[in-house]
């Protein structure tokens, strides 16, 4: 549907010749090209031009950059040490296009595939280790900054963004209650069921109460809550702060004298520290309810018996051990989530990568911390 129009030089360039695909053939020692030399036809052209002394493009009806590339490439292959092979029959526009393409031909591929030697592997390992150590140092320094900011807010409470804090508490706390409670309830159910199967063999069904109480209160309740919160809120922190970083909002804050740590990080971390113990408590309760229900159905341990045994046999320290861990887990999730968010660079891809890093790293660190707590509590005997 190209309009013929008046024959401007541009129309000549795109003039509608016989509507045939491109053809390349050898005639009297010349490579004769004809038809439409366009991006979708050049790939079909033969590459063989052996023995040709000239390229004739007088019969080419249309030529685009790809067509010009074909001509230049053919010329280059045919030249091969001899004088330049002439290109015949090109009009002004075609001549100009061929010149432009010739000037912009990519350089010959010089990059050869280098083999990876053992030394390279060792070097890569070293670099990764150093990078890991650097992240540890940066995280620690970031932790220090946040603690300093928190400390200065104790002295100047007005610097705390209360609205933001409450908003984040609702976001990570209140909105997470259903999922946390449901998960914990199911864990209680599973523990009771599996425990009863094993304990029945010894006729020690009633110990299922101790099993559920200790494992839920001491470990599972808070650990699983922390993992859910890391996946739910840690990633949200990274994504939110990261996209602000991408749009230079964080830089804008700095220029008007607002500290991103005060505005973005402290309310988020503080919200988590305040809310995670509460979520842990809810999780503990839901786990116990789930366990009690399953014990009743499966073993006939009535809720009254369950409660009596729970109160008399379970030391309150089991509950306290779980609760003590909560703020530390919250700190880990919050710090890592915000730190990764602030590391986001200019492109969308780094946002996605760092969000997943943030979740993986915070879950991993929560479990490491849990292991350390276990050892410490064992050492001091609680």
């Amino acid at each position, binding site marked *: *549907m190209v309009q013929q129009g008046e024959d*401007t030089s*541009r129309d000549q360039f795109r003039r509608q010749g016989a509507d045939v695909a491109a053809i390349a053939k050898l005639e009297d020692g010349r490579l004769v090209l004809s038809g439409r030399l366009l*991006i979708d036809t050049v790939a079909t052209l033969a590459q063989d031009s052996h023995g040709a002394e000239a390229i004739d493009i007088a019969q080419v009806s249309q030529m685009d*950059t790809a067509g010009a590339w074909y001509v230049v490439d053919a010329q280059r292959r045919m030249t091969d040490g001899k004088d330049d092979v002439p290109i015949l029959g090109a009009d002004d*526009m075609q001549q100009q296009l061929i010149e432009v393409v010739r000037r*912009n031909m990519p350089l010959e591929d010089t990059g050869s595939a280098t083999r990876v030697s053992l030394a390279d592997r060792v070097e890569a390992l070293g670099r990764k280790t150093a990078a890991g150590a650097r992240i540890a140092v940066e995280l620690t320094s970031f932790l220090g900054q946040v603690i300093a900011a928190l400390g200065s807010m104790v002295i100047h409470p007005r610097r705390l963004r209360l609205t933001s804090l409450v908003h984040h508490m609702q976001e990570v706390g209140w909105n997470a209650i259903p999922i946390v409670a449901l998960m914990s309830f199911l864990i209680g159910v599973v523990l009771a069921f599996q425990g009863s199967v094993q304990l029945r063999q010894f006729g020690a069904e009633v110990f299922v109460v101790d099993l559920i109480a200790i494992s839920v209160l001491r470990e599972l309740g808070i650990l699983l809550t922390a993992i859910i919160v890391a996946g739910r809120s840690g990633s949200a922190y990274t994504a939110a702060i990261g996209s602000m970083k991408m749009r230079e909002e964080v830089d804008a804050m700095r220029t008007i004298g607002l500290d991103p740590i005060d505005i973005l990080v402290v309310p988020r971390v503080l919200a988590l520290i305040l809310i995670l113990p509460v979520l842990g408590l809810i999780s503990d309760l839901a786990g116990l309810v789930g366990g009690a229900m399953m014990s009743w159905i499966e073993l006939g341990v009535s809720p009254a018996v369950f409660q009596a045994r729970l109160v008399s046999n379970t030391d309150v320290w089991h509950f306290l051990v779980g609760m003590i861990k909560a703020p530390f887990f919250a700190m880990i999730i919050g710090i890592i989530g915000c730190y990764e968010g602030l590391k986001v660079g200019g*492109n969308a*891809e780094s946002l996605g990568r760092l969000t997943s890093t943030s979740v993986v790293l915070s879950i991993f660190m929560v479990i490491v911390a849990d292991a350390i707590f276990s050892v410490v509590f064992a050492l001091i005997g609680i």
Partner: protein
Amino acid sequence: MSDAEPIIKVRGLTKGFGSHLVHKGLDLDVRRGEIIGIVGGSGTGKSVLLQQIVGLLKPDSGSIEVFGQSVQGTPPEQYKQLRRRWGVMFQDGALFSSLTVRQNVEAPMREQLDLPNALRETLAGIKVRMVGLEEVAHSKFPSELSGGMRKRAGFARAIALDPEIVFLDEPTAGLDPIGAAAFDTLIRKLQTTLGLTVFLVTHDLDSLHAICDRIAVLAEKKVLAVGTMAELMEVDHPWVHEYFHGPRARAALKTEQDEKVP
């Protein structure tokens, strides 16, 4: 050339967002092979007009024909063919951030054509070099480039398939004067080499003087005036007058007269 059927023909275009009307009865012709500059105050719908012509937005009423075919009325298959014949460069390039510069230019070829890998890479390499990016920039990601280089890469992607029309949305905005002038030269050079029709949305008076064959002024929800720079200097409308007689316009016009571009 004025007798030729216009390559883009907009008639009675009306478009509004909610109760706010952007275009009302807008007419515009773009001729084959010209560089037409679209100017207008902020919010007069220059980019909206561009988006409607390339089919990203649907007009409320009116017709848009490109190459004699209606953009809105065509079935998807035909629209695909139509789309291949134009290229769009968005503000700031709109490069895919997860691809390198060369992969960005390869993207339309990969999507539209079935080319051997080596050929596609070579052709993309030529295009990237044609817009003036050195070899080292080819394997860089958009976030590693300066604003000017991103715009050049965006231009390379727009001309990847040798289109007949190129739509450029503020190509020189945010560039330093030297970079902007170099970009103008680039547009002019590629326009003559590749035989392009260029639809240029711009605020840059220097670009208008230097490279545009005709200028269309968008105001009062329609194209208020179309013509060469000299013709528009005579238009009486207050906004047009202010635009082409303001201090910046006079400065731009003066430099143009000093070093007349052929």
